[in-house]
């Protein structure tokens, strides 16, 4: 049984149909990437999984039970966490408070403590900025905070919407290493990345979205070598 | 299921809006004809009087919408500016015998000066903090009106404010007063509309959406806020002048915080940044208390609950979220590109 199964999902905003009946699966322990041009519907798909936007039709099954159009808070409690597009840190709260909120669903104080320790280890700059208001962080610092916050709870399924956005090359490498590491620790990952080359290279499988529809799928390797993908998403060069 | 239902309703509403947008000229003309013929068709003084209230509050709601809806500055003291205008007109006409034409111009100017005076030191304050500054302004004005007896006659109010007259002809009948306020409303709508269709209007909207970005686009945010404030308070002053001549008696009780909230309610209910919305909101809330006379004792309770209920069903106001101009533009554009597709 796949960990997440998306069946025939459609989402629209008024007259705009952002996602038009897509289906895909993610198995436990996989890294799966969604790639696609601007506006293809990647973010919308992620948001539909976490319940942030409501779907018009289709079904989303997580761990055997349907989470279609559930309340985001309930979905998160089932073990899904997301680092959303555009960072979305809590600007007036400190870095530390932001991280603590990442572990809101767990009662155990130890988990929070460990999570924060890990976050500081992964991104030392966050430790330096621990008591600074998150809104004053630089763009990249906020991005790190958003990713670290999503990792606070050891989710079953981690959704990362462009986690490398605005990060320095050094840190981008760290992020991809990190994704591999947490997968190895048992977390399943759904990744949306503009840096498709890197993303596909660490992914087990990938799906290509075009104007709200899945047009291609395959293993990371297959997609990376697919001429269409190379042409449209990898800058034409391989 | 309920969800789906309300969505259908919304779509229906959007459709209606689209039709309205496409035929905006016709609708404008029809409304205008209706407004002009209203007092002739319905000769009842009572109805005309209610209509006068609708029109007067439309002027107030539109003027408030200019800063609240179009610029994003919530004002909780709009009645303060109305009061300044009303007192200016009342004092000029009772003490110096000035005619309505000139008292209304003077009221507009004085009220906008007050707007500028309030704005200069305070418009750098943001958001909810600024809202309470406007509330404070309204209260301060009222308390000054109450205490500065030599100028305003304090709590005695000013009575015997002469009727409006033009070239020696007194406008004594309700129907005359009706046409005066109709003209004022048309002027208001025209001014605000013209502004919003110009670079000044775009500057206003950009300030509402993102001050920092507006600044970076070369817009002197502070200057435009002052301009907006001046025009808005000036129009409120104009309505105040009309109020004074229309009622014949004013005192500080007419310009309370509750009055400010009433005007704000009309603006919100009609929909932010919508001129037709403001007219509908103002008319609705002017007629509602009369329509509710039937429920007697429960009138105010029902009134309050209705406000909440309408907001719950239409959380962006009756016409909020529908910019007719945008709808029309998009429609025309879609039509034109469709046309191109067909040709190719």
């Amino acid at each position, binding site marked *: 049984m796949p960990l997440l199964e998306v069946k025939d999902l459609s989402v629209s905003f008024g007259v705009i149909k952002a996602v038009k009946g897509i289906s895909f699966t993610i198995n436990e322990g996989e890294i799966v990437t969604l790639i696609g041009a601007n506006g293809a519907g990647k973010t919308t798909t992620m948001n539909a999984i976490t319940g942030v936007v409501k779907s018009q039709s289709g079904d989303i099954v997580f761990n055997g039970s349907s989470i279609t159009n559930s309340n985001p808070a309930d979905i998160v409690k089932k073990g899904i966490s997301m680092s959303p597009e555009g960072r979305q840190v809590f600007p007036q709260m400190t870095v530390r408070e932001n991280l603590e909120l990442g572990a*809101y669903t767990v009662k155990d104080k130890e988990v929070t403590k460990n999570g924060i320790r890990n976050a500081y280890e992964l991104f030392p700059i966050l430790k330096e900025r621990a008591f600074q208001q998150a809104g004053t962080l630089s763009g990249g610092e906020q991005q790190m905070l958003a990713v670290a916050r999503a990792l606070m709870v050891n989710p079953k399924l981690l959704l990362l919407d462009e986690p490398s956005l605005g990060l320095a090359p050094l840190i981008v490498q760290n992020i991809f290493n990190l994704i591999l590491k947490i997968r190895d620790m048992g977390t399943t990952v759904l990744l949306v990345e503009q840096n498709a080359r890197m993303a596909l290279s660490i992914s087990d499988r990938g799906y290509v979205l075009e104007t709200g529809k899945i047009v291609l799928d395959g293993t990371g390797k297959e997609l990376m070598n697919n001429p269409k993908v190379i042409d449209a998403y990898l800058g034409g060069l391989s | 299921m309920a969800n789906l239902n309300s969505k259908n309703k919304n779509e229906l509403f959007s459709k209606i809006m689209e039709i309205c947008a496409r035929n905006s000229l016709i609708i404008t003309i029809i409304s205008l004809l209706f407004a002009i013929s209203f007092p002739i068709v319905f000769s009842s003084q009572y109805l005309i009087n209610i209509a006068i209230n609708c029109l007067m509050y439309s002027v107030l709601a539109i003027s408030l919408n200019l800063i609240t809806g179009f610029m994003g500055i919530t004002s909780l003291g709009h009645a303060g500016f109305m009061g300044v205008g009303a007192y200016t007109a009342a004092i000029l006409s009772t003490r110096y015998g000035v005619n309505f034409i000139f008292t209304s111009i003077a009221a507009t100017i004085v009220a906008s000066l007050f707007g500028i005076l309030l704005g200069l030191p305070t418009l750098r304050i*943001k958001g909810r903090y600024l809202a309470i500054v406007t509330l404070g302004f309204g209260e301060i004005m009222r308390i000054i009106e109450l205490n500065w007896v030599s100028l305003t006659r304090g709590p005695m109010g000013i009575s015997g404010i002469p009727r409006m007259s033009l070239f020696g002809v007194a406008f004594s009948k309700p129907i005359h007063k009706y046409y005066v306020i109709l003209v004022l409303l048309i002027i208001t709508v025209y001014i605000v509309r013209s502004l919003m269709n110009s670079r000044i209007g775009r500057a206003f909207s950009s300030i509402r959406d993102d001050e920092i970005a507006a600044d970076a686009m070369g817009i002197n945010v502070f200057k435009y806020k002052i301009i907006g404030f001046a025009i808005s308070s000036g129009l409120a002053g104009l309505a105040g002048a009309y109020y004074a001549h229309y009622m014949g008696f004013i005192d500080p009780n007419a310009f309370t915080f509750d009055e400010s909230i009433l005007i704000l309610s009309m603006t*919100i209910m009609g929909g932010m940044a919508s001129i037709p919305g403001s007219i509908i909101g103002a008319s609705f809330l002017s007629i509602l208390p009369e329509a509710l006379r039937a429920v007697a004792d429960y009138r105010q309770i029902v009134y309050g609950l209705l406000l909440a209920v309408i907001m719950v069903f239409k959380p962006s106001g009756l016409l909020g979220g529908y910019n007719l101009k945008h709808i029309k533009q998009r429609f025309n554009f879609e039509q034109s590109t469709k046309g191109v597709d067909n040709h190719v």
Partner: protein
Amino acid sequence: MLLQQIINGLTIGSIYALVTIGFNMVYGVLELTNFAHSSFYMLGSYITLFTMTSLIGKISISGFIISLFISLFLTGLLGALMDKIALEPIRKKNGEPITALLSTVGIQTAINNAVLLIFGTVPVAFPDVFNLGKFTIRENTIIQNIQIGIFILATILMIGLSYLVYKTKFGSAMRAISQNPVTASLMGINVNHVITMTFFIGTAVAAISGTMVGLYYQRVDTLMGASVGLKSFAAAVLGGMGSLPGGMLGGILIGLLETLFAAYVSSGYRDIVAFIILISVLIIKPSGLFGKQIINKV
């Protein structure tokens, strides 16, 4: 007389502070101007009184305390109900925040007039169950013990709510929601539940404030909310929105200064003092005395 006037000022200031606290929590934390707050304050006072005199029929300290608890619970429940019925649907439909304000205006009108109908329009005497008495310091300066009580109560509520907002998980959920509700839900926070609870607490505190003030003036009337509503609004902003200690200080400052102004300058212009201080402070410090500067990182 100065000392007496200072005591007068501190008393009315504590009353402003008392009303501001619950308001400020909802206002500062959820960024919603709840115009109905002062109505709940009045309603809470009425409920305590009527529970004590009519339902329990026991005019005593114990009767009072039981009634107070019933009242704060009932009022809180009504506050929560208001959120569920009149505000939550607006949030769900992504209405503009300002429409929520209008909804609270409607609720305010409805409550005020319902109270008029149910409890009548005539002010009702509130029995002085504690009968705390007063004492004289210096030849002519009098302090009533209940004035001290109000001050202490305001302080306790302020500290209690500050603890809730700044030191508990629930509090950080509240603050997270005010800054970014969607992301808050992604943290697993049940947004609507937390907001409803916030209203429950805020209005329950309003009931406590109303009851205390009723006890102090030994009466309740339908205008009691109106007389403190705007001032406590001003106090909340003066102190800095969302800063509960700031709100308390703002209330006391306003009470003190307006009293001294009324005593030594002009009683007629007394009610502009609050707003003059407020505007002056905001011009110098646009986020109030203790408000956090809202950073706008570009």
